[in-house]
């Protein structure tokens, strides 16, 4: 029993230490970010391509199918109350406020977060980061900040694309397959989907972008410099990102609702 309490205490202390180190890491990144945005935009643009553009396929496919499923489920439920015409509104609200930001962040963590962690972790394992330090180049400014900013900029854009495609998926199912009126599908959104709903999704996608990106670069940067260390860093990135995204989602929803 004593041993169990001791282990739990160590685990808790370890968690606090890592959490604190990550906050300091994020503060350092944020302090360097404005200058990096101004002076190294080419590096950031390269990361937006590598992280964002290269994630488009998974976002497009998943977005389409999520939208189609929402279309089917939404129609099935609304039809019971004779409110099929509200399908567009129901799908739009659930996508903009919840599913869009959350699902995109989870997909992003799996596709881009792991790539970020693995890339930086491998740079650590092959002494590339040490070599930079010895060339008097700060790897945080040169490598970490551009990767981080690439992630933070990409995720809201990917979320917008996900929402758009998913809405299109719901439209295909609802209008083309189930016979919902096309005009009603779109026009019902106008009075019910407000700017605040869109902004809630935007805020969430930015917060998730910061959270997933900092987790990925932190795990990669602090990876143990072995094959196993890099593998552990990528796994931790996905697992912790998923948990953090869902916790943050609840917190933001609770604040904004």
């Amino acid at each position, binding site marked *: 029993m004593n041993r169990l309490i001791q282990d739990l205490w160590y685990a808790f202390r370890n968690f606090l230490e890592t959490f604190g180190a990550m906050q300091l890491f994020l503060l350092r990144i944020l302090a360097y970010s404005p200058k990096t945005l101004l002076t190294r935009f080419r590096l950031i643009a390269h990361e937006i391509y590598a992280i964002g553009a290269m994630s488009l396929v998974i976002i497009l496919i998943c977005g389409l199918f999520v939208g189609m499923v929402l279309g089917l489920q939404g129609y099935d439920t609304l039809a019971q109350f004779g409110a099929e015409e509200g399908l567009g509104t129901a799908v739009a609200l659930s996508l903009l406020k919840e599913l869009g930001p959350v699902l995109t962040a989870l997909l992003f963590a799996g596709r881009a977060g792991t790539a970020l962690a693995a890339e930086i972790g491998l*740079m650590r394992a*092959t*002494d*590339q980061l*040490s*070599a*930079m*330090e*010895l*060339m*008097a*180049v*700060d790897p945080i400014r*040169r490598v970490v900040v551009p990767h981080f900013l690439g992630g933070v900029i990409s995720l809201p854009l990917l979320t917008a694309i996900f929402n758009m495609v998913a809405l299109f998926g719901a439209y295909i199912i609802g209008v083309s397959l189930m016979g919902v009126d096309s005009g009603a599908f779109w026009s019902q959104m106008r009075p019910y989907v407000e700017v605040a709903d869109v902004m809630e999704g935007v805020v969430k996608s930015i917060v998730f972008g910061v959270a997933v990106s900092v987790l990925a670069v932190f795990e990669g940067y602090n990876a143990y410099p072995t094959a196993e260390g890099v593998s552990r860093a990528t796994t931790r990135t996905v697992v912790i990102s998923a948990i953090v995204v869902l916790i943050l989602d609840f917190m933001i929803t609770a604040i904004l609702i």
Partner: protein
Amino acid sequence: MAENGRDNIILIEDLYYSRGQKRIFNGLDIAFQRGKITAVMGPSGTGKTTLLRLITGQLVPERGRILIDGQDITALQRNELYELRKRFGMLFQNGALLTDLSVFENVAFPLREHTKLPERLIKHIVLTKLHAVGLRGAAELVPSELSGGMARRVALARAMVMDPDILIYDEPFTGLDPISLGVVLRLIKRLNDSLGITSIVVSHDVEETSSIADESYLISEGQVVASGTPSELKTHGNAVVQQFLSGMADGPVPFHYPGRDYKDQLLDRD
């Protein structure tokens, strides 16, 4: 810093460093002379690479001073340390080339980061350095297309592109074929002699290192066990030195890692 007729560029005094529970350095004292090639040798695991990381400020010692031209690097702020590092060039064991950049861009990397030189001049400097290591023709290749020896030569070109005062080589001969080894060996000697650079070569390749070193240190158990010219080391009376130089499997440095009694372990006796 002149001391006893020596002009020391790096002076390490009473250095203590531990990794976890294991003591790596136990009051280490070493001096590196300006413009000379100094070899640091010792059995695997004695902390040779750790010593380099301490000298370059990547690790912080528990105790002791590391003076570079009289400036204690353990007391420097981060930006002062980065400024000082511009005087260093380091060749890593595996080259540590940036894998997403071409050979040319790898060598140009420090110039692009630290200077605002026009592109034409950068091209000129990079090609000159690549020519010096015999790889001007490989400028457009990427690191994955290079052999181990070529990668190390590119890393050497990169290490000297900022014209450093001190060039540090971490195990430069490990895993090289005889031709690449000879090339790297001659390059180290030639760079040192023609550019007046101070060279620190960390290695356990006794023959190769001794052939170019002006002075050698042999470290074991966290301290210097012998120092002097390669020929002085050969006649040194210390048993560790003789075991290391002659490559004997067992001796003061044991062949077996400390553990339980062999017989007891086989018979599962506690």
